[in-house]
């Protein structure tokens, strides 16, 4: 039985028309990564986030609708590509970013990037959504994807770790 978070994310990606994913591993997304192929989304694990932005851009040029799944610590690893590739050419990308360094974070090294994530997105003029519940997560993923394809830009959804603990009874 999939967790609520994994179920919501997978169905939102399908509803958004996403058919290609690149990823750098993350605990919060572990189950999603495992099941992407089973819902018809081609999945290419990459070695580093910047590489993933490149692979996703190539897939888009070939007609795919790509998503990147990564931790917020990876945002710094791909900033130049998001700006000098995606923004320069008008290449859309849906970004699912799991948030480390928030409330209850136990690893001290995650905190500075956790605090810098939203300021970095703002500085790069990359629109982002921070859903507060699983229901909102679905709306935001579908909305962010539509906005990315329509405006031909990268758009981020920040997935806070608390959403992994929420369980929906329906």
């Amino acid at each position, binding site marked *: 039985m999939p967790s609520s978070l994994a179920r919501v994310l997978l169905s939102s990606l399908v509803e958004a028309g996403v058919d290609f994913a690149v990823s750098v591993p993350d605990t919060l997304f572990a189950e999603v990564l495992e099941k992407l192929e089973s819902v018809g989304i081609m999945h290419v694990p990459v070695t580093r986030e910047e590489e993933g932005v*490149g692979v996703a851009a*190539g897939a888009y040029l070939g007609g795919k609708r790509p998503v990147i799944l990564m931790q917020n610590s990876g945002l710094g690893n791909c900033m130049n590509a998001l700006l000098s590739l995606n923004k320069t050419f008008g290449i859309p990308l849906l970004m699912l970013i799991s948030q480390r360094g928030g409330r209850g974070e136990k690893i001290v090294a995650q905190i500075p990037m956790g605090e810098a994530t939203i300021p970095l997105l703002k500085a790069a003029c990359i629109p982002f959504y921070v859903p507060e519940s699983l229901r909102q997560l679905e709306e935001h993923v579908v909305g962010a994807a539509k906005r990315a394809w329509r405006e031909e830009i990268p758009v981020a959804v920040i997935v806070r770790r608390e959403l992994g603990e929420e369980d929906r009874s329906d």
Partner: protein
Amino acid sequence: MKRIEAIRCVMEELDGELVVCNIGYPSRELYSVRDRDENFYMLGSMGLASSIGLGLALSTKKRVVVFDGDGSLLMNLGSLVTIANQSPPNLTLIVLDNESYSTTGGQPSYTAGKTSLAKMARAAGIDNVLEVKSPEELKSAFNESKGKTSVIIAKVEKGNADVPIIPLSPYWIKKRFMKAAKGNRVQSQV
């Protein structure tokens, strides 16, 4: 062989293949040799030519040819690992290795020292890795590589050809490229 000669001899072999070209002078040289809708000229994001080529090759049935550089590939060595494991048979990665960062003033790269990109590509798990030094060798390596995930390391002279800046907007480069690539897409299995 000069880098522009290497680019020219590959371009003479092409029909409808999709081309992704590295940032800087290589893209300018390609534009002056043979501009076509199927060329994607990278203008930023140094290091990502091979990654863009991989994503493209996984999404289209057409052959994808990437012109990369030694300095650029050294910036994104993990790409060799992902290419080896995904192994799209329609991807040919040509590394124009001049053992230097030509666009930024000719600083030596580590391929001038102890590092062999061919050995690194093989160690990453790519089976078809070829090393060439002349236009004739490059041409035959390119034709032999059809239908196999391939890396061709082409040693070229240092320096850039005297060619102008590409007078196309990034958005236009993307639009016409995507139009040319259309119709050869790989369908997702749902």
